[in-house]
């Protein structure tokens, strides 16, 4: 068995992917920990590694038709300093891990890892990010919500690679992000909240609300958002208790080493309350 392959370009990577069962690996910051066996031992991967972190095609950030295209191999540290990336996403990324890990970790890895606590996910769900999945013979574009199906589960086919993330061209004039962790640096999320809104003349033209770490997948409800859109801010401010009640049924956290279900739920609803009451 080959233990790994370093393709020269994306085409070669996809050809390898089509021919061999493989584990795509970019930065490795999640996989190397998940497969670690301890001091001095090499991590235990059951399939050959396909190294894709160095592929130029996956390292670009560009604007096409007004949409931002982020290569799956773009580093977290590169997102923070790129002027095409929105302040909302930067805010989430700046609070992820630490500089030595952000210099390795990629946005594509954070998505494919499909952790409920993946910190780029609430933003990507909120903005309706789409993913380009390529194989030698096909290309499909799907909504991130259709890609991640369960904790650690995604719909990537054995011959596909995530190549690009598309952020639709849309301006929000209100952006609110909070990550709740045990401390500031190197913290894993207990609960996170992404709120985005477009307010004009005190009317809610658009609103996006996403919760991280409080259910098997990111929580977002188009139905509740639709009930808010088009209304005057004063009406929304008055309806906050009602909106909280609706979201309370969707927020289904668990107790684990990081936090308790009760705390997660409470803090998530408080953050939503804070976001909604700040709209003006």
């Amino acid at each position, binding site marked *: 068995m080959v233990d*790994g392959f370093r393709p020269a370009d994306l085409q070669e990577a996809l050809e390898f992917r089509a021919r061999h069962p493989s584990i795509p690996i970019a930065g*490795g*910051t999640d996989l190397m920990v998940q497969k670690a066996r*301890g001091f001095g031992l090499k991590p235990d991967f059951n399939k050959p590694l396909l190294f894709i972190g160095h592929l130029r095609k996956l390292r670009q950030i560009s604007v096409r038709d007004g949409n931002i295209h982020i290569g799956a191999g773009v580093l977290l*540290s590169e997102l923070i300093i790129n002027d095409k990336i929105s302040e909302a996403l930067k805010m989430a990324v700046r609070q992820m891990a630490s*500089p*030595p890990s952000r210099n390795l970790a990629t946005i594509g890895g954070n998505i494919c890892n499909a952790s409920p606590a993946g910190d780029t996910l609430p933003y990507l769900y909120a903005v309706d990010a789409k993913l380009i999945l390529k194989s030698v013979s096909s290309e499909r574009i799907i909504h991130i919500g259709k890609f991640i199906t369960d904790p650690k589960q995604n719909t990537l086919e054995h011959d596909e690679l995530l190549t690009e993330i598309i952020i639709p061209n849309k301006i929000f004039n209100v952006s609110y992000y909070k990550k709740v962790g045990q401390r500031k640096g190197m913290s894993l999320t207990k609960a996170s909240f992404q709120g985005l809104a477009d307010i004009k003349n005190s009317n809610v033209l658009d609103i996006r609300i996403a919760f991280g770490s409080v259910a098997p997948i990111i929580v977002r409800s188009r139905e509740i958002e639709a009930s808010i859109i088009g209304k005057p801010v004063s009406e929304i401010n008055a309806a906050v208790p009602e909106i909280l009640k609706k979201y309370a049924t969707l927020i289904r956290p668990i107790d684990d080493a990081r936090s308790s279900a009760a705390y997660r739920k409470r803090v998530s609803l408080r953050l939503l309350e804070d976001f909604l009451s700040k709209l003006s």
Partner: protein
Amino acid sequence: MKIEFVLNDKKQVIQVDPASRLLDILRDDFELTSVKEGCGEGECGACVVLMDDKAVNSCLIPVGNIEGRHIVTMESFRKTERYKVIEESFLEAGSVQCGFCTPGIVMSTESLLRENPKPGDNEIRDALSGNLCRCTGYNMIIKGVKLAATRGKGLW
């Protein structure tokens, strides 16, 4: 897999399983023991080295990823003028106690000062947020980094 890379300014060609951790290759094959293993999961920063001048956790890097890259550890960085300034400043500020975390912190400091020669308090705290120290309480380390930035003016 055959991997070619530059280690402390010297070209190396190694035959390895590409899933091996860079940390283990540095310590076991090259005997560069300034690189420490603390947690093995990217939390403590004791294994931080420079890859193309940027601080990275060597415990998280599969060696398949270092092809063509330049890795620098304390063993060679300590010969530089910039290191001497950091060492002097750290000693003066009391930034070092047991010393286990120090190589990683020195590497993070170098990476920070290369990017930002005049960092403020918060920038220093962020740059060192991936390095745990159980002795000093951090304030003395931050003081040490500030002192190095002032003293080493023009070096970064």
